[in-house]
Each structure stands twice: as structure tokens, then as C-alpha cells.
């Protein structure tokens, strides 16, 4: 008997694959062991070759469906195509990134399939062939484990940057599948402008200098900018700093911002609210500077200094020079 299929629905981000897709393939490979057949499902235009960005991560199979309408298709049209693929292959599990796109298509597909979907998961594991998905609720104050015992496929959307993507030399078998494209005539995308964001985001950086309300003066931010440059990293911020003109929501770390796991993060003037911590607690090395010895951030840190953020930055920059 062939192995049950564990699917990752690949997502496009402009002309590339959304990084969450690659993260999910790595996680799916780890979960699958010998029990599941990991399939990356890719809907692309006839001239696209996005599978090249998936092979490196070594799913067992990349199932490609081509139609020139896919890149601009609406949620319902994509969900309809996926429904046909699910009906044909009867996968055990279907995973999506919890991106805007994933969170729009997955529930539409869920309703078509009348099955369970767990949103915005922070962890996944299998008990036999039942997916146990960990989902935060009440603004990350509570964690729930959720299963879908009786219906298949079982589905989940997974928060971006929850898992790390790892290339593997395994390679992947490339197959193609066909669906009928059913256009939805009552909804049209009349314009699509790329949001140009050439800089790497805080989510991709391997070193992050993070600033909070205690490190918000112009002089401190300037020192932090130099420090980030010296470390080859990026600046990230806690939520209050997104009110400043220099920063946007894209720079925010935390539950309602980016989940990151850089090799190194330096937290300056950040108290360590749970909504912040969940966004960065999987970083490899965590260093925090805060003038309050009782700030909760210290309990989540490897190294801590009780003192003024700017003074510490200046001292650090001085010793790098």
C-alpha cells in the first residue's frame, strides 16, 4: 500500500516561492519519517519554473499544475483547483502558510471539503496519522492543541518563520497534474502593484538589533543603526516603536508582527511582554539590555546587562572600532 500523502501547498511571492513554503517542507520531511509521502503542490503559469525553488528542500514529490490564469487567480478559483486535486489524491494532511493568501484560501477549501482547519499554528506533530496542531489564542496568552480525528484531509495554516527551512540533497520527483479552471466571473483583480521591498526584512536577518520604548531616542536609534551595520544585521522593533516614522509594521517583532529566529538578537529597552517574547524566543543567542533589573526580558535571555541602552551601545561600538 502506498503511503498517505502529507501536502504543503506552495505559495508564490511575486516571482519567487514564499519562504514559509520552504519552511513547511522541511518540517513536513521531519514529521513524515517513513510514514508519509511529502508532496509540495504547486499551481503555476506554463512559463514558470518555481519548482526549482522547492527541489532544494527535498519533498518526496513536487506536483505541478500549470495554467496561465493561476498567478492572478482569486481565492475561490485557487480553492476550487485545490479541491479537485484533493479529491483525486485524498491526502491525509494539507498544510498552508498562515500568510494573508494562505489564510484566505485554506478556509475556503476547508468549507468545500467540510473538514477541519487549525489556524496560525506554532507547532505540529503526529499521533499515529492524526495531526496535533498547536494554536495560540487570546492574543498568544493561551495555547491549544487541536486535532481533527475523523475527517480527512486534516488541514492547518502555520505562522511564517515558525520553522527553519533546511536545504537537503534528497531532490524531489517532479510530476504534473491537471485540473479544470473554473473562472469566477463576479470577482476580478483589476490591478496588482508589487509592494517593492528590496531590503531584507527583519524576518530574514540572521542578526537583529531590536529596539523598544526604552531605546527610542533619535541618538539611540542612530547608534543602533551603526551597530546593526557592524553586525551585518537589521533593526527590529517592539510594537510601540512602529508609531515612529522611521519604522513600520514590517519591522515589528512579536505576535502581531514578525516571528524571527536569528542567530543573534540584541534587545535594547524592551520589557519582554509575552506578545513580544513569542516573536523572538527561538533566536539562538539572546542578549538584553534594560535599566530595570526585574524586566521579564531577562528571564528569556542568555546574556543581560542592567543599565542604559544607549550607553551600552556606545561602549560596544567603541570596542568594535
Amino acid at each position, binding site marked *: 500500500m502506498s503511503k498517505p500523502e502529507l501536502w504543503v501547498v506552495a505559495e508564490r511571492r511575486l516571482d519567487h516561492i514564499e519562504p514559509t513554503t520552504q519552511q513547511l517542507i522541511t518540517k513536513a520531511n521531519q514529521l513524515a519519517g517513513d510514514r508519509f509521502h511529502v508532496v509540495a503542490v504547486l499551481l503555476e503559469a506554463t512559463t514558470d519554473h518555481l519548482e526549482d525553488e522547492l527541489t532544494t528542500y527535498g519533498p518526496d514529490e513536487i506536483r505541478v499544475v500549470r495554467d496561465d490564469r493561476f498567478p492572478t487567480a482569486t481565492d*475561490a478559483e485557487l480553492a476550487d483547483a485545490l479541491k479537485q486535486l484533493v479529491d483525486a489524491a485524498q491526502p491525509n494532511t494539507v498544510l498552508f502558510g498562515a500568510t494573508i493568501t494562505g489564510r484566505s484560501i485554506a478556509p475556503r477549501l476547508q468549507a468545500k471539503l467540510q473538514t477541519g482547519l487549525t489556524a496560525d499554528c506554532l507547532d505540529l506533530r503526529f499521533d499515529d496519522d492524526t495531526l496535533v496542531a498547536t494554536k495560540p489564542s*487570546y492574543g498568544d496568552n493561551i495555547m491549544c492543541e487541536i486535532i481533527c480525528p475523523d475527517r480527512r484531509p486534516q488541514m492547518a495554516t502555520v505562522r511564517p518563520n515558525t520553522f527553519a527551512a533546511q536545504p537537503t540533497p534528497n531532490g524531489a520527483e517532479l510530476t504534473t497534474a491537471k485540473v479544470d479552471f473554473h473562472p469566477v466571473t463576479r470577482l476580478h483583480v483589476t490591478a496588482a502593484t508589487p509592494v517593492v521591498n528590496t531590503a531584507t526584512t527583519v524576518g530574514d536577518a540572521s542578526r537583529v538589533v531590536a529596539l523598544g520604548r526604552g531605546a527610542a531616542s533619535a541618538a539611540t536609534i542612530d547608534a543602533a543603526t551603526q551597530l546593526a551595520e557592524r553586525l551585518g544585521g537589521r533593526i527590529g522593533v517592539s510594537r510601540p516603536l512602529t508609531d515612529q516614522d522611521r519604522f513600520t509594521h514590517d519591522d515589528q517583532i512579536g505576535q502581531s508582527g514578525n516571528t524571527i529566529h536569528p542567530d543573534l538578537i540584541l534587545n535594547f529597552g524592551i520589557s519582554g511582554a509575552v506578545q513580544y517574547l513569542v516573536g523572538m524566543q527561538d533566536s539562538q543567542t539572546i542578549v538584553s539590555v534594560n535599566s530595570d533589573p526585574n524586566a521579564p526580558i531577562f528571564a528569556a535571555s542568555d546574556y543581560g546587562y542592567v543599565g542604559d541602552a544607549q550607553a551600552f551601545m556606545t561602549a560596544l561600538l567603541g570596542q568594535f572600532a
Partner: protein
Amino acid sequence: MKIVVCIKQVPETNDVTIDPKTHNLDRRGLAGVMNPFDKNAVEQALQFKATTDAQVVLLSMGPDDYAQSLREGMAMGADSGVLLSDRAFAGADTLATGYVIAKAIEKIGDVDLVIFGRQAVDADTGQVGPIVAEFLQQPQITYAATLRLSGPNEVTAERLLEDTKQTLVAQLPAVVSVRSELNPPRYPTPRNIQLSFEKPLTIWHHDDLDLDDSRLGQAGSPTIVTKVYAPKPVKRELTPLTGTPQEAASQLIKALKDRQLL
């Protein structure tokens, strides 16, 4: 034009705790309020009402005390409220919730536009809108950042994806879920609060709708919550950096070199 706005009642604060004995959520003493994201949906409907002859109906599924947030929405200016309340609906996940809400929208009848909030702040899923859109077989626009009536029977929205700003045009009837950036919701005025008590609030029970019982409540919910716990941030072994900033900085540099980070 008839607009339905789906609203959920949620606890006033997200600082919920877990009962150490029962391992259940302890929501005692937490007042219920309208889900903050749903206020943006109500506000949008009211702006349409101001420029057209739109009738704004609020729809909520939940226990009888959800009437409170329906009154809240009527005090903002909505015309009427419908509460779907029955023991048979209890324990529903997003699929079973979406089913009953879609059935109720069919019963309300001649609905041109259904507006949802971005997500409920307790469950944090954002799934109910697309599920209802699918059950109603209507086009959906999720995470709308702007929304306007662009024709007699048409809405135009902008949606910000991770990499692209899309403009979408939908023929009505359609389902839209909105982001909070859309608008600042209005506050109820004293006069509207007074009026809200005269506006019709209808309660529909199980028998008022034409329902397939196997799709209701817990039995109709494919998902089960098997465990609820408070997240423990992974506590780390803290090495203090001490002395003057200069001394502390050199301790850090040494540590980072040891960890091959410098």
C-alpha cells in the same frame, strides 16, 4: 441595499487564565464586548448607510448574553440585530459556526453584502468569513484595507498581500472581511444608545432555521481541542554582564566570540 455585519462577542480582555484544577479557561467575571475588529466592519456598513439607503443588520451566533454586543452595534447606528442562540449550536468550531451563519443569511434574504471582521480576538482564526462565502457560493474579498461602492451593484476593495497591493472588484452579492486599518470605528452617541433599545433584536433558535443537525455544534465540528495550557516562555540560563558599560561590552564580545558569532 441590505448589509449584514457578522459580529462576535469576546471577553473584555485577553488576560485569561487557566483553572489549575479543571485545565479549562477561567473566564469568570470577564465582561463580554463586541470583538474589536468587528467594529471596523460595523463602521464600514454605517458609512455605506450614510450614502445609500442601506439597511444594516447585525448577526451573531452565541448565548443569549451576546445580545449585549448586538445592542452595542445598534447603538453605533445599525438598524437591527439577529441572534442565533440555541444549545444545539454550542461547541461549534469555525466550520459549524459558518454553516449556521450562512443559513441565517439565507433566511434574512436579499442580502447584498456581508461584512466580517478580520478575526475574532479570542479564537484568532479569521476563517468564518471565507467559510460563509463558500457556503453562500459568493465571491470573497478578505483583509480589505479599503472598501467602496463603485457602482449600483459593485464594491471595489484594496487588499494588501505580503508582496502585492491588489485592487478587486466584486459584483454583489459578495462577502468581505476587513482589516482594522480600514477606519476608526465611531462611538455610540447617547441618543443612539437610547434608540438602540427600541430597535428590533430577533432571536432565532434551532427550529427557526432549516438546518442539517449533523452539521451543528460539537457534532458538526471536525476539530476538537484536546489540551489548553498557558505558554511558558522558554526560560534561559542568564549570564549577567556586569560593571561599567565598557566592561559589560567587552564581556559580551568575548562571549559572542566563544559562540562564534563574531
